């Protein structure tokens, strides 16, 4: 890029939505933490992600210039929330604009619908992405009331009620301690 500051004549300036942005950052942060905790305590989440190789990273980002989160498979097969997305994660799921992001992060629309209508773009290994999406569905089921889960998933995964409530409590209690962890925390 050239260094000369370009002048513009009467051109409209971007009008940001600071509240939307803060909400998206907060919601993404919660999803990142909950995902990491759920992988530790829920056997099915762990099973879905067991095919991911060590060091595998996947990220969810609001495009362009929006907040993002990244999760990484540690050396002991433990998933960690590592903060904002790095340059090239193995799988990148990109919410294409703030409207799509809010629809997904307020759980008012299904991620599948948003994906099918070009509101969510995915790059990277597709079988791995499908496993991550299945795991994310389980995490949502553990976190959210049934009425909301029915809106965002095609089918509510059958987790026994007692186990679901116990795990939900455990996840919420563990959230404040769930990251983000720096890369060097689990260097080999």
């Amino acid at each position, binding site marked *: 890029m050239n260094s000369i500051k370009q002048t513009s004549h009467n051109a409209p300036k971007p009008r940001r939505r600071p509240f939307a942005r803060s909400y998206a950052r907060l919601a993404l942060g919660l999803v990142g933490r909950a995902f990491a905790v759920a992988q530790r305590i829920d056997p099915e989440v762990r099973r879905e992600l067991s095919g991911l190789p060590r060091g595998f990273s996947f990220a969810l980002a609001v495009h362009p210039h929006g907040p993002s989160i990244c999760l990484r498979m540690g050396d002991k097969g433990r998933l960690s929330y590592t903060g904002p997305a790095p340059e090239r994660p193995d799988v990148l799921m990109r919410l294409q604009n703030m409207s799509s992001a809010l629809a997904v992060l307020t759980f008012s629309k299904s991620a599948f*619908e948003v994906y*099918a*209508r070009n509101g969510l773009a995915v790059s*990277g290994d597709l079988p791995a992405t*499908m496993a991550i999406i299945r795991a994310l569905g389980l995490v949502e089921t553990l976190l959210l009331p049934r009425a909301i889960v029915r*809106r965002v998933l*095609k089918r509510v995964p059958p987790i026994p009620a007692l186990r679901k409530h116990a795990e939900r409590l455990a996840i919420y209690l563990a959230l404040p301690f769930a990251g983000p962890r720096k890369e060097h925390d689990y260097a080999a």
Partner: protein
Amino acid sequence: MQRNDYFEFHNPVKILAGKSALDALPNELERLGSHRPLIVADKGVRAAGLIDVVMKATGESNFEPAALFDEVPPDSGTRTAAAAARLYRETCCDGIVAIGGGSVIDTAKAVNVLVTKGGDDLVAYSGAGAITGRLSPFIVIPTTAGTGSECTLVAVVRDDDRGRKLLFVSASLLPDAAIIDPRMTLTLPPLVTAATGMDALTHAIEASYCLGKNPLSDSFAERAIEIVARRLAAVTRTPSDVDGRLELALASTMAGIAFSNSMVGLVHSLGHATGAVCHVHHGVAMSIFLPHVLEYNLNRRGAEIGKLLLPLAGPEAYFSTPDGKRPHEAIARIRALQEELAALAGLPRRLSETGKVKREDLDEIARSAVDDASLAYNPEEADIADCRALLEHAY
């Protein structure tokens, strides 16, 4: 689930269609600024004399390709694409003309990425949206009426080093032009005509009820369904029917436009998995799974599936069928078409009839199907057990 009112529709492919459409190839190349095109084809296309048909149709215009690469195998991969790209560079080509079916067209898309972006490592470009900007001049002449690949933004190519499929999704992959000429499909044997026609029908049907459906893709899909329903059995019976061949080829292109913009669902998840595990022909798999998957999606998409009866059976049958019976009647029509094609061309109706699938394979197929990305677009959820049950039904 709620409906999303936002959608995108993209089809920048110029379509040249008709009984003498091939004659326009030199003009199109000139329009695109290509003077030394590379022809990408396979041995079958060459043996069927289809390259000669093109050369004859364009002879008066002194059409002279710079090189011919006719070594695309049925299950083409990264090494084939790299070899074609090498030929392109060595002979200083400046455009690509693909003459063939799905494998040839997808390979040509990959070649176009390599010769425009440089290098020979396709893996770096795999995934969704990794390829941006304009590629080199690219014209497709399909020789089957089924894949619709001449109008899709997708390419599937085998990673020859790691033995897995690479999926490329990018608007840059869309060809500049597609030439639909019935001379290219006239010699297709009945079984291939039937199977590829059922692939086109599946594209149109899945496009019209899966999650990415939108008003524009709907209109392309509906017309494609109507043509396949009316013409496929007749053309399978009378392969030399030029008008029918042209209509079927157009239906395949329209179905391609529809599903390139709304994507496909569970029929394709099961079909890709069955192809990968047991090497069942893609169109054959589509035909086998289509009615079962429609029944599976009835709860979520009964109304949409009921509407299929209109293009499948015509207005009289549609309006004389009560609303509540239309979904089942639509599925019954597809089964009837299947039976007809089985009698005419020996098109398998069940997995066991393909002679390639053993019961022991079903578990592996089910496991692989849930990892197929097209499942994300299917209205109804399907886990491994659901896929296993569907496979059992279709066995």
